[in-house]
């Protein structure tokens, strides 16, 4: 037999009627925000788990800074470790995370629109960052340098810089982290904290001008659409455009026209 849902104005402890606005049941004394109190007790352990996640991320990123001679092997080893960490945290909290792997209200028009906007944004950011690097640090940063000696360097670059972060960073930051933070703070704060942590973990203060807004947008998109997938596509096309411009700089493309 199916259980009848308890109306809001019945005490969940003694089933007596509780007028709306009363904070306690006048029959059994049960606080009417009892469920909120139970949630409050879980906030600190949840924050501790977020702390553990962030420490693991920091350790991986620091390890990449400490390795002097970067090779493709070390790069992929670190990618695998961070990917495993993202999967571990995501699937450890599977009951609360599984819903965001669905794609409710899928719209091809929305997806294509986002992809076009993302490519335009990435072209603008790449152009500005290139000039900022020359202006501030007197150097040009190229992603392809690490991959150019390999036979399949181009593919590996797209795999490591575009595909890998699009899946695993989204799974970790917009997936696990935002979902966990939602049990501690409200939606806006969860998006904000996850974006700040995402920005910080990239160890590049100067990228605050584009990385933080980008992370805020991805977080907002995740909350608004209740799915991870739009973010995965946006992240992939953003990074893939940067990789493409690394191979074919804007100046060379302009010469073609």
């Amino acid at each position: 037999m199916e259980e009848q849902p308890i109306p809001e104005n019945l005490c969940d402890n003694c089933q007596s009627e509780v007028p709306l606005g009363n904070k306690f049941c006048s029959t059994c004394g049960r606080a009417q925000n009892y469920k909120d109190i139970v949630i409050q007790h879980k906030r600190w352990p949840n924050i501790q788990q977020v702390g553990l996640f962030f420490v693991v991320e920091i350790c991986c990123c620091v390890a990449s800074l400490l390795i002097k001679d970067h090779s493709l092997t070390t790069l992929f080893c670190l990618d695998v470790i961070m990917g495993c960490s993202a999967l571990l945290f995501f699937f450890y909290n599977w009951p609360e995370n599984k819903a965001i792997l669905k794609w409710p209200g899928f719209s091809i028009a929305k997806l294509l629109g986002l992809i076009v906007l993302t490519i335009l944004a990435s072209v603008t950011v790449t152009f500005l960052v290139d000039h900022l690097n020359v202006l501030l640090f007197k150097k040009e940063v190229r992603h392809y340098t690490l991959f150019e000696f390999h036979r399949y360097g181009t593919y590996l670059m797209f795999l490591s810089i575009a595909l890998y972060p699009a899946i695993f960073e989204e799974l970790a930051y917009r997936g696990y982290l935002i979902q966990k933070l939602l049990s501690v703070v409200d939606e806006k704060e969860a998006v904000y904290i996850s974006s700040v942590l995402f920005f910080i973990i990239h160890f590049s203060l100067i990228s605050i001008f584009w990385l933080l807004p980008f992370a805020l947008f991805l977080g907002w998109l995740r909350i608004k659409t209740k799915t991870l997938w739009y973010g995965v596509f946006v992240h992939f096309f953003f990074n893939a455009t940067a990789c493409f411009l690394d191979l074919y700089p804007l100046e060379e493309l302009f010469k073609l026209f």
Partner: protein
Amino acid sequence: MESSNDSLCNSCYKPFTLTDTFCNNCGFPLQGTKEEKDSHIANRTIKEVDLIELQRSVDSACNSLYWIAGFIGLSTIFIFFTAAAEDQFALLIMNVILVGAFLGFGVLSRSKPTTAMISGLSLYVIIQILNLIADPATIFKGIIFKVGIIIYLIKGIKSVMEADKIKKELNIE
């Protein structure tokens, strides 16, 4: 049934009706024994005192965000004049971003303390790690200040959670 001035809760002084077993505003056992009533009032008082203490701890943690901003601001002046000429501009820009970020967290901490303190703590820890990698000797410079700031912020985050929990238990906003 009407409530009169004679039927005020002994704990929160809100009116109640004679059929009520518990106060519907604070959960006070209106029909309970003297021990139950005393215990309720004592528990409520303890929680209210705890709340004041926790709020003080949160305020200190929020202030530490301004302290960090001030400390970075002062060190910027020193670094600016001692750094190599070609690095001065980049260092200045980065330190201005950091000072701005911590001041922003300080302001944000008045309305959203959890967010501000988690963000501030994370950024502060990362700065220390990057400094450590760049120059391992820096770990010992101002170590008491650094450890103090980290402890203050962690305690601050925990205090916000505790304070929110007590507010929910006391059913106050």
